[in-house]
């Protein structure tokens, strides 16, 4: 019985990995065959970004059980830190793979640092209060980045919070971060393949962490804080750990995102609370704590509005209907009963289950 459960868990994880690889292979074949529109091709890297964001947010919302609405902020930090690095070292490091790898480490590290620093005060709160404060922090990060002007000349770095002229740079100076205009000229180092690899790495980290001593401690705190404390689990340590790892992975998503665009600016559209809510929608619709579900929800909800583009005015209506239908289907008692009666497992797997029971 013990072994069976273990293999069931491992099998489920392997399916998740396999699904991602399969998706890559299928897309690759379709692209080679010329069956993918340029619109969809342009969506592939953002799609990978959203999947990483959804999986990493699931670590906080599903596994750690805390509602965080500032995820886009961490993505923003990762994006800007890495884009800044890549821009600055564009000439020094010409191998794009190496440069992207270093940018990745920097983006993840800076986002983790922000996650850690913000996590210390914020994780003292719970529930709605935590959601409100993380929302605020996300907005603060975005708005602060919007007023940073950073340049480099022969004398070194210059920084200003007013405008590009107040940096008093030499004529040979180059503006690296230009306030609301953001960072321009980031090398285009992201690709669909890199995105897929990063998704696999994210999955590897999150899944392995959840199925380890650390993950058990985090889930124990989620299920019963007082009991967890009574068996000697350090509450703050593990909550902060989950939050920091999640922020760091959001930073990775930010790196991927930034290196797919030549111009990176912190706008409400890409790093505002709309984005945070959208990631949360992926997590909730995919099933809180269900990592594979997060991936599917992120893919479907990103592609849907694009695929329905021909319907013009009706597409957002369709999007809303799909959202509501999914919620009813997955969460309401009626929907659950329906699923139990007509799920594929029941229709095809019943005989097998009966055999196992014997």
């Amino acid at each position, binding site marked *: *019985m*013990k072994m*069976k*459960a273990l293999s069931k868990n491992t099998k489920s994880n392997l399916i998740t990995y396999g699904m991602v690889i399969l998706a890559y292979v299928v897309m690759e074949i379709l692209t080679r065959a010329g069956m993918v529109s340029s619109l969809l091709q342009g969506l592939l890297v953002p799609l990978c970004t959203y999947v990483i964001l959804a999986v990493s947010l699931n670590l906080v919302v599903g596994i750690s059980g805390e509602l965080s609405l500032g995820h886009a902020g961490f993505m923003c930090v990762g994006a800007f830190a890495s884009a800044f690095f890549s821009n600055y070292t564009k000439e020094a490091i010409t191998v794009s793979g190496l440069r992207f790898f270093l940018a990745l480490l920097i983006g993840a590290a800076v986002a983790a640092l922000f996650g850690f620093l913000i996590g210390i005060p914020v994780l003292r709160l719970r529930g709605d209060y935590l959601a409100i404060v993380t929302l605020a922090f996300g907005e603060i990060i975005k708005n602060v980045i919007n007023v940073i002007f950073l340049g480099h000349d022969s004398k070194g770095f210059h920084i200003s919070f007013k405008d590009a002229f107040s940096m008093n740079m030499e004529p040979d100076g180059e503006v690296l971060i230009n306030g609301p205009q953001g960072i321009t000229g980031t090398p285009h180092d992201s690709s669909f393949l890199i995105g897929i690899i990063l998704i696999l790495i994210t999955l*590897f*980290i999150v899944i*392995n*962490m959840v199925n*380890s*001593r*650390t*993950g*058990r*401690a985090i*889930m*124990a705190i*989620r*299920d*019963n804080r*007082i*009991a*967890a*404390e*009574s*068996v*000697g*689990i*350090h509450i703050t340590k593990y909550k902060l*750990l989950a939050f920091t790892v999640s922020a760091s992975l959001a930073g990775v998503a930010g790196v991927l995102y930034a290196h797919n665009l030549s111009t990176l600016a912190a706008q409400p559209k890409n790093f505002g609370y709309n984005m945070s809510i959208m990631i949360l929608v992926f997590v909730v619709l995919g099933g809180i704590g269900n990592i594979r579900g997060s991936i599917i929800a992120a893919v479907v909800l990103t592609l849907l509005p694009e695929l329905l583009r021909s319907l013009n005015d009706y597409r957002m209506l369709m999007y809303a209907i799909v959202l509501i239908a999914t919620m009813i289907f997955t969460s309401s008692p009626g929907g659950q009963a329906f699923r139990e009666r007509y799920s594929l497992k029941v229709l095809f797997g019943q005989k097998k289950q009966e055999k196992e029971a014997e």
Partner: protein
Amino acid sequence: MALLEVKELGISFGGLRAVDDFHMTIEQGELYGLIGPNGAGKTTVFNLLTGVYKPTDGYILLDGENITGKKTIEINQHGIARTFQNIRLFNELTVKDNVKVGLHNHHTYSTLTGILRLPKYYKVEKEMDERAMELLKVFDLDGEADYKASNLPYGKQRKLEIARALATDPKLLLLDEPAAGMNPQETQELMNTIRFVRDEFHMTILLIEHDMKLVSGICEKLTVLNFGQILTEGETSEVLNDPKVITAYLGE
């Protein structure tokens, strides 16, 4: 030297003196009962012993070490484990994982080892699995190891809580109303289990209980609490026949 020594322990919540001048000495291997009417302060004493509340006065010595005012997790590491009056399991985790959380501080590897699945991960997880199954077997829960904890019947949930507490390898086990909500047959079974735990693990046990059959059946010594103060203490048979205890708690 006594395993647990409590002297002049007291706590006030604002103007309310919840526990006053509480003392208690428990020897190694004893089965000790704490009884009294509702609201007498029994659970408050447990919360003081486990660091949930910080005492306003008095001190607590565990095995000669002063643990007064320490944090819950430190006290657990010193060797006090507890169960709760209203069951507090990790409901979404499996029965086995509940026990494995209890083993958290005894079988360790770093988070990174866990993520990278280094050889140590497999070795320690195997040790944990074996230890957890051993403990579950004691409580006859090994057949339900992969069930979600919330799916267990009530009596088994109580047992699982004890198993989880034992997993932290305590010197002293505190049971807060272990028989609450159990039928006579389950209570009888629980009494056997508690005795077995004491003998098998050489455990010292302090329990709060209202079920007089259980108390008189297994406790060797008793302390009776009433309105936050000790009414009387001593050998079980003497205490239960004390007229003061009969008027205050047991009734004629």
